[in-house]
């Protein structure tokens, strides 16, 4: 009697899970498998006469032998490390300010969220406009304070073109990091600080030995989200620099897009996409393990 009800329950569980499982299979696993299949075939939409033969790892080998691929990878790593470091640093500062601000916290928090809520494409257009010369505000300000005497063209310098891009990304996503850390800050038991004060700990020691360790989990979560997002950066750069000058600011996602949708090389593009998937997958696994360890550490 009991076992049959258990079996019924199990069936019910499956009935509830199956739609979700099916959806995941359809929108995540199936496209992934298809990409894998494409990546080991020659498939140039433009050249149907070449057919779609199996070519093994040729597409991957081509990517590894292409300087533009390695450059794009370097750009992606540079963008990710710079922007994520800045965002975590500034986000922590902003969170501390918000945490200690007693008045107007709600207003400031809403204002901070505005940047995060804005579609990336819109933010990118605004920032491009600000940095554009000769009409851009940034140039006008620089000329006013006398840093430069002629309008400065940000987007034609292979190094300086990164400045507007990273500024825009930091502006847009720092609030997200700040809110995540703020939530965690507000959960810290105040009695810990009281005890520390009684023991004569300085504010810096309190921050160093109470706040930071207890923010670790939130920090890791922010780090995961931001790294994975930054690694796949596309829209921001597509709109601000299109990867230029030359290909000096082209990230791996933009290179893939260009191969897939401009050159319509589906096989090669799929190989690149699988590459991005592998890297982000490894990063995600690494972070999840870190988080796991963190939870165990916190529990014991």
């Amino acid at each position, binding site marked *: 009697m009991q076992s049959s009800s258990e079996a019924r329950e199990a069936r019910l569980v499956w009935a509830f899970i199956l739609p979700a499982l099916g959806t995941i299979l359809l929108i995540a696993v199936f496209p992934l498998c298809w990409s894998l299949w494409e990546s080991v075939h020659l498939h140039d939409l433009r050249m149907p006469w070449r057919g779609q033969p199996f070519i093994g790892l040729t597409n991957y080998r081509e990517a590894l032998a292409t300087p533009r691929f390695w450059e794009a990878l370097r750009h992606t790593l540079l963008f990710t490390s710079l922007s994520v470091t800045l965002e975590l640093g500034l986000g922590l500062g902003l969170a501390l300010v918000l945490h200690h601000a007693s008045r107007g916290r709600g207003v400031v928090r809403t204002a901070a969220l505005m940047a995060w809520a804005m579609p990336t494409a819109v933010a990118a257009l605004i920032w491009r406009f600000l940095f554009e010369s000769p009409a851009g505000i940034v140039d006008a300000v620089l000329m006013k304070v006398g840093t430069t005497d002629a309008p400065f*063209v940000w987007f034609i310098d292979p190094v300086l073109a990164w400045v507007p891009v990273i500024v825009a990304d930091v502006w847009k996503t720092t609030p997200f990091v700040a809110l995540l850390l703020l939530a965690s800050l507000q959960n810290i038991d105040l009695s810990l600080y009281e005890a520390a004060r009684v023991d004569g700990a300085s504010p810096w020691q309190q921050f160093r030995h109470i706040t930071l360790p207890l923010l670790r989990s939130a920090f890791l979560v922010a780090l995961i989200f931001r790294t994975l997002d930054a690694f796949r950066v596309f829209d921001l750069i597509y709109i601000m620099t299109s990867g*230029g*000058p*030359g290909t000096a600011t082209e990230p791996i996602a933009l290179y893939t897009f260009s191969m897939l949708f401009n050159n319509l090389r589906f096989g090669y593009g799929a190989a690149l996409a699988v590459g991005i998937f592998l890297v982000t997958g490894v990063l995600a696994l690494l972070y999840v393990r870190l988080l796991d360890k963190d939870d165990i550490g916190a529990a014991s």
Partner: protein
Amino acid sequence: MPVHCRRCIVLIVAALLAFSTDGCRTPVSQSRVITFPGSAVGAEAEVLRRQLHRFMENHPDIKVVQRPTPDAADQRHQLYVQWLNAGADDPDILQLDVVWTAEFAAAGWLLPLDRFAPDINSFFPSTVIANRWAGTLYALPWFVDVGMLYWRTDLLDHPPRTFDELSHQAAMVQSRAGLPFGFVWQGARYEGLVTVFLEHLGGFGGCILDDAGHVMVDAEPAVQALTYMRDAIYQNHIVPSVVLTWQEEQTRFAFQNGQAVFMRNWPYAAALLTDRSTSQVSGKFAVALMPALSTATPTATLGGSQLAINAHSDYPDAAYAVIAYLTQPAQMLERARIVGQYPARPALYTASELASTLPLPPEQVRRIIEHAVPRPVTPVYTELSDILQIALHRALTQQQSPTEALGEAARAMRALLTKVELDPESRAQQGQSHAEQ
């Protein structure tokens, strides 16, 4: 909650119905339905609608349905490739950018037009060359676009004929009249940069691919042309470095506000520059051919639109009837009058109607179109252009020397052509085996 569900179901059913009615394309009462994709907005869609309506009045057995497609060339291209690659019989007629014909023809997506025996001699020769692939005609020119040099008639008494003269005039007028820019062109990393480069390149006696299909972008004229463009920015200071982020409209704004002595642009700018309410150079400008070395021919990049037939079309004859009608002189003149697009038939440039409707003297425009050069007619043009755009932009933003950038581009272009068996050697072999058959 139930209300929600019901609304969902209604929506789903409605969507399904919409798809199913759209999906089946049953010919209504024996008439043949021809689908025609094109711009959905503005005067361009309006004039096309009017012309197709007249066509249907003359041909009651053919019904032409307009398919709205994106205006942006890249998006339209992507959509076409998806349709054609899937072997769709819809749309029947395709509106092609001048650089797409070879690509679509080589893919087997276009119907050869030779069997309809169109009178190709009545079109500009360069437009016909651009529409042939492997000796077969695949599209008919609809209207022509061409790159030209805009110059200020209030500051100069004649346009420059050589590059040195252009540099000299630009620098002189800049200092005399206090203009911020001497010469503006489209220098952002996009197709426009290749069209500008091609005009400089031709003027220095070079080309991208020669007649046999050899890559020529690392030859001496190419290096000279790119060096000239770069020196104009950093040595002679006649071209502002900001052009390296500019497309057509930004150059037009600069010229329109009276900031530049010269501008390279397409004919569309002329109508806007003539508008007194916004333009400060109305009545103070004229167009000319781009300059050239005395040993070379001035060159204008050919642009414009072509009409072709989907190889899978159910009614190729009816589709050709539509194309033949739209490319007739009367329709071309009407298009010129309403949307300012230049006819692909040289004979029309003596028509008085054209002179009274266009902002530029037809005779001058015809002379420029006669110098028009198509970009390389090859199925892999987009990839070649991509390689070239990057190399040009790298050299112009001083990341590489012109020799280095063009050498790298030439190697990449040769490798690509060899890989897809379109290099001169493979083509010669294919030609032989073709002849043996």
